[in-house]
C-alpha cells in the first residue's frame, strides 16, 4: 500500500508537472496558427453550412449565451488547491470568465478529493445522475459509450471549436482514436504522451571515471560496467557492498524498470507490438524476452543485482540507490527528480548521466512506450448544450496556450495556481509537450538570456537550473530532466529524432477478456520472470509462453487484433 501511495504521489507530481507546462504556449514559437483563432467568423460560417446544420441560422462560436445557461458538472480538488481574496472553487477567476465571456454558469453536483473521484464517478453512473459535462476513465468511457449515454461531439467540435482547440484534439491520432467510438468523437481526448514513460539508462559517472571505464554505448559495455561497479569497490569503502543495477520486485513501473534492459535485447515487456505478419502480439512472450531474462539471471548470479530485490518495492530500491550503493538504473525521464536527487543531495561527489538504451547488436535499441489514455471529457446524452464543452475548452486554450494567454491572471501568480480552478484542466499539455519546454529552456540558457521571454513555467525550470549552475545541488534534478544533456535532451536526440521509439500498438479501453484475465496474466509474468532471474531454468520460459496463452492470453490477443482491425 505504501508503494501505491508513492506511485500516486509520483503520478500526481507528474500530472502537476504536465499541468504546469500547459501554459507553455511558447511565445518564441510564433507560428502556431492560432492567430486565426476566434476572429475567424467567415470560417465558421462555412462550417455551419454543413448539411446537418443547414436548417439552423449561422453559428457564431464566440457568441455569449444570453441569458446565461447553467451547466452541471462534477470535479475533484486536492490540498494543493490554494485560493486568495476569498475565491472558492465555485467563484474564482475561471468561473467569472466562464460567466462573463461565455455566459456559462458551472454548477458542481459534487466535489471530492482526487483519489475518490473514480469511485464517486462509478456511483454517479450507477445511480443514473450524470451531470452535463464530466471526466471519466477509459473503462467508464467504454461502458458509457456502449450504453449510448454519451453525446456525439464530432459536429459541435467542427462548428464551435477554435483552431487551437482543433489542433489540440487532432494532434494525438491515437488519443483521438481512443476517444472515438463507432466513428463518433464522444470525448475531448487527453494529451498523447509517448515520451514521458520511455526508459532511459542512468549511470554514476563519477564511478565510471574512478574505474576508468568507457561510456555505455553497447550492451557489452553496459555488462562490463555493471560487473565492475559490483566487484571493483567503486565507492572506495573497502567493502564488497555495491551493486551494478537497481531492481525491485515489481520489475517494471518507471523506477527501477527492467524494460529498459529488455529493450536492449529487442524485447518489449507488457506492450503490444506488430510481428512480421502484421499481427499484434504481446511483447512479454516473444523469444527475444528469453535472451533478456537469461542475461538478467546471469547478472543476478554475479551479484550485480541486489540478492533481495524480490521482496523490495521501488521505495526500498531507491533507499539503496540513494545511499550510494547502486551504480546504474533504468527508468523514466523523471528519475533525476526522484530518486536520484536524494542521493545527489547527500553525496557531493555523486554525478549521474543519462544515456539511451544500449543495444545488444548492431540494430539500435528502441525504447518501449505506452500511452494510457485514461481521462476523457464527455457530455451526457441529451444535455441541453453539448457545445458548451467545446466553448469551455476554447476558452481554456485561449487563456493558457494561445498567443493571447494571460498567465498571470489565469495560470498562476505568487505560488497560487489558478489554472487548476478551470473545469477542464490538467493532462492536456501543449501541442508540443514537455520536449518543447526543454528546448525553450535550453535555448534561453545557451543564448545567455535572463529567461524573461519564457512563460512562467519554463521560467521556473530556467531559474532552478540557474540556481544549480550557481552551486545549489538541491536543484540538480531539474537540470538533469530539462537542462542540457538531461533526460529530455536524450529523448529528443535519440528516441524522437532517430525514431527509436517502440509504441504499444494497443491503446483502447481494456477488452472484456483483459478485464477478466489481466490480473492472472500479470501474476504469471511477474512470477515467472522473477523466478527465472533468481535462477530457475531458462527453459521454463517456453512453458510460460504456453501457459500464458492457455490462461487467456490467446483470447486477449485475439480481442486486441479484432480491436486493431476495427480501428484501421
Amino acid at each position, binding site marked *: *500500500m505504501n508503494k501505491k501511495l508513492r506511485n500516486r504521489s509520483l503520478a500526481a507530481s507528474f500530472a502537476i508537472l504536465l499541468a504546469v507546462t500547459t501554459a507553455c504556449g511558447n511565445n518564441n514559437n510564433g507560428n502556431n496558427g492560432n492567430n486565426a483563432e476566434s476572429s475567424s467568423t467567415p470560417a465558421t460560417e462555412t462550417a455551419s453550412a454543413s448539411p446537418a446544420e443547414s436548417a439552423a441560422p449561422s453559428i457564431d462560436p464566440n457568441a455569449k449565451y444570453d441569458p446565461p445557461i447553467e451547466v452541471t458538472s462534477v470535479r475533484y480538488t486536492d490540498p494543493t488547491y490554494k485560493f486568495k481574496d476569498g475565491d472558492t472553487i465555485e467563484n474564482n477567476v475561471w468561473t467569472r470568465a466562464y460567466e462573463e465571456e461565455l455566459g456559462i454558469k458551472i454548477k458542481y453536483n459534487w466535489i471530492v478529493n482526487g483519489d475518490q473521484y473514480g469511485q464517486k464517478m462509478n456511483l454517479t453512473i*450507477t*445511480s443514473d445522475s450524470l451531470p452535463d459535462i464530466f471526466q471519466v476513465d477509459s473503462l467508464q468511457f467504454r461502458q458509457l459509450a*456502449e450504453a449510448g449515454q454519451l453525446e456525439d461531439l464530432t459536429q459541435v467540435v467542427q462548428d464551435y471549436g477554435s483552431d487551437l482547440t482543433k489542433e489540440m484534439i487532432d494532434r494525438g491520432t491515437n488519443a483521438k482514436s481512443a476517444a472515438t467510438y463507432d466513428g463518433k468523437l464522444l470525448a475531448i481526448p487527453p494529451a498523447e504522451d509517448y515520451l514521458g514513460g520511455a526508459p532511459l539508462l542512468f549511470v554514476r559517472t563519477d564511478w565510471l571515471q574512478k574505474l576508468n571505464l568507457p561510456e555505455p554505448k553497447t550492451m557489452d559495455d553496459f555488462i562490463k560496467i555493471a560487473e565492475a561497479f559490483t566487484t571493483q569497490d567503486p565507492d572506495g569503502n573497502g567493502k564488497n557492498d555495491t551493486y551494478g543495477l537497481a531492481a525491485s520486485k515489481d520489475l517494471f513501473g518507471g523506477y527501477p524498470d527492467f524494460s529498459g534492459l529488455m529493450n536492449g535485447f529487442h524485447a518489449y515487456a507488457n506492450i503490444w507490438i506488430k510481428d512480421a505478419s502484421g499481427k499484434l502480439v504481446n511483447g512479454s512472450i516473444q523469444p527475444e524476452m528469453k535472451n533478456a531474462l537469461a542475461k538478467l539471471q546471469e547478472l543476478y548470479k554475479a551479484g550485480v543485482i541486489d540478492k*533481495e530485490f524480490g521482496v523490495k518495492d521501488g521505495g*526500498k530500491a531507491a533507499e539503496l540507490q540513494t545511499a550510494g550503493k547502486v551504480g546504474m538504473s533504468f527508468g523514466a525521464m523523471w528519475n533525476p527528480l526522484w530518486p536520484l536527487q536524494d542521493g545527489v543531495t547527500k553525496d557531493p561527489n555523486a554525478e549521474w548521466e543519462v544515456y539511451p538504451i544500449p543495444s545488444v547488436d548492431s540494430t539500435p535499441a528502441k525504447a518501449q512506450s505506452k500511452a494510457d489514455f485514461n481521462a476523457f471529457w464527455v457530455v451526457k446524452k441529451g444535455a441541453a448544450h453539448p457545445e458548451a464543452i467545446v466553448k469551455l475548452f476554447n476558452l481554456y486554450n485561449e487563456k493558457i496556450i494561445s498567443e493571447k494567454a494571460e498567465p498571470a491572471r489565469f495560470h498562476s501568480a505568487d505560488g497560487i495556481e489558478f489554472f487548476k480552478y478551470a473545469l477542464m484542466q490538467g493532462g492536456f499539455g501543449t501541442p508540443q509537450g514537455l520536449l518543447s519546454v526543454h528546448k525553450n529552456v535550453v535555448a534561453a540558457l545557451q543564448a545567455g538570456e535572463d529567461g524573461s521571454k519564457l512563460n512562467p513555467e519554463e521560467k521556473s525550470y530556467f531559474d532552478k537550473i540557474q540556481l544549480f549552475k550557481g552551486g545549489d545541488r538541491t536543484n540538480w534534478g531539474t537540470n538533469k530532466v530539462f537542462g542540457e544533456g538531461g533526460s529530455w535532451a536524450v529523448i529528443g536526440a535519440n528516441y524522437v529524432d532517430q525514431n527509436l521509439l517502440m509504441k504499444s500498438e494497443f491503446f483502447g479501453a481494456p477488452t472484456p477478456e483483459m*478485464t477478466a484475465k489481466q490480473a492472472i496474466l500479470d501474476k504469471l509474468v511477474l512470477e515467472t520472470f522473477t523466478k527465472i532471474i*533468481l535462477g530457475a531454468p531458462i527453459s521454463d520460459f517456453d512453458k510460460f509462453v504456453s501457459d500464458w496463452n492457455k490462461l487467456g492470453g490467446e483470447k486477449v490477443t485475439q480481442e486486441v487484433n479484432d480491436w486493431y482491425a476495427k480501428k484501421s
Partner: protein
Amino acid sequence: MIKPKIRRQLPLHLMVAPSFILVLIFSYGPIVGLMIAFQKFSIVKGMFGSPFVGWDNFDYMFKLPEIWQVIRNTVGISIMKIAAGLVVPILVALLLNEVRKQAFKRWIQTMIYLPHFLSWIILGGVLIDILSPTSGIVNQFLGLFGIEPIFFLGNAHWFPVVVVISDVWKEFGFSTIVYLAALAGINPALYEAAVIDGANRWKQTLHITLPGMIPIIILLVTLSLGNVLNAGFDQIFNLYSPVVYESGDIIDTLVYRLGLEQAQYSLATAVGLIKSVVSIVLISGSYYLAYRAANYRIF
C-alpha cells in the same frame, strides 16, 4: 396495563433506536447488493439493470487455475494463526498473572500491547529490513551460531511461518489483556480453599485458573473460527512478492488483483459472499458444539 409499560420504556426505546436504524441501513440494507454476485454487473446499467447470470461468477472463480492453491494457503495460514493466537496469549496471561510486582507486570503488558497499534504498512517495511538475509538483525544473530542466512520473505517455505509469527507478535498483547481480565474475575476464595486443600501453584492453575477461563476461551475461539477464510489482507499484501505467491497468495489478495484492480465487482462480491457463508456455517457450528460440549452459551 400495557400502555404505561410502553410509556415507561419509551425513552429506552428511543435511545436504542439510532443504533437500531444504523444497523438496519448499513448492515442489513447492503445485503440487497449481494445480488450483483449473480449478475454480470455493469456500472452503467446499475444493480437493477444488469443481466443475471446465475452461478457464472462462482463457476468462473472455482475454475481459476490457482484457486485451490490460494484456498489452501488461506486456510493453512489462518488456522496456524488461530492456533498460535490462542495458545500464546493464554500462556502469557497465566505467566503475567503470577508476577507479583505490579509495576513490572504493567510494563510488560504495555510493551507487548504496543505493536497492536502499528499498521502493517509500517511493520511491512520494518520486517523486510530486520529479516533481510544480508543486513537484517535476525540473520546476523543466526550467523553467530554458524547458521547460513535465511531469506525469510523470499522463500516459499518460510513465508507462511513469518506471517504467522509476526501476526502473533503483533496481536498477542491485545488478547492477553482480554484473558487477564478473565483471570481477574475468578473468585479469590477458590484459591484460598485450594491452598487449604494442599494444592500447589500448578494444581491451582490446572483446576481453578484454566476452568475459570474456559468461557472466554470458547468465546474467542468461536469468534475466530469465523475468520478461517481471512488470512489477513493488509499483512500479506505488505509482505508478499511474486517469489512467494505459491505459498503466500490468499483469497483476499487474489480478489484484490482480480476484482478491484480490474473493476470486476461481481466477482469480488461473489467471493465475499462465499466467505460470509463459510463464516456463518463455521460460527454457528462451533457455537452449537460449544453448547453441546461445554454447555456454554454466548447469548
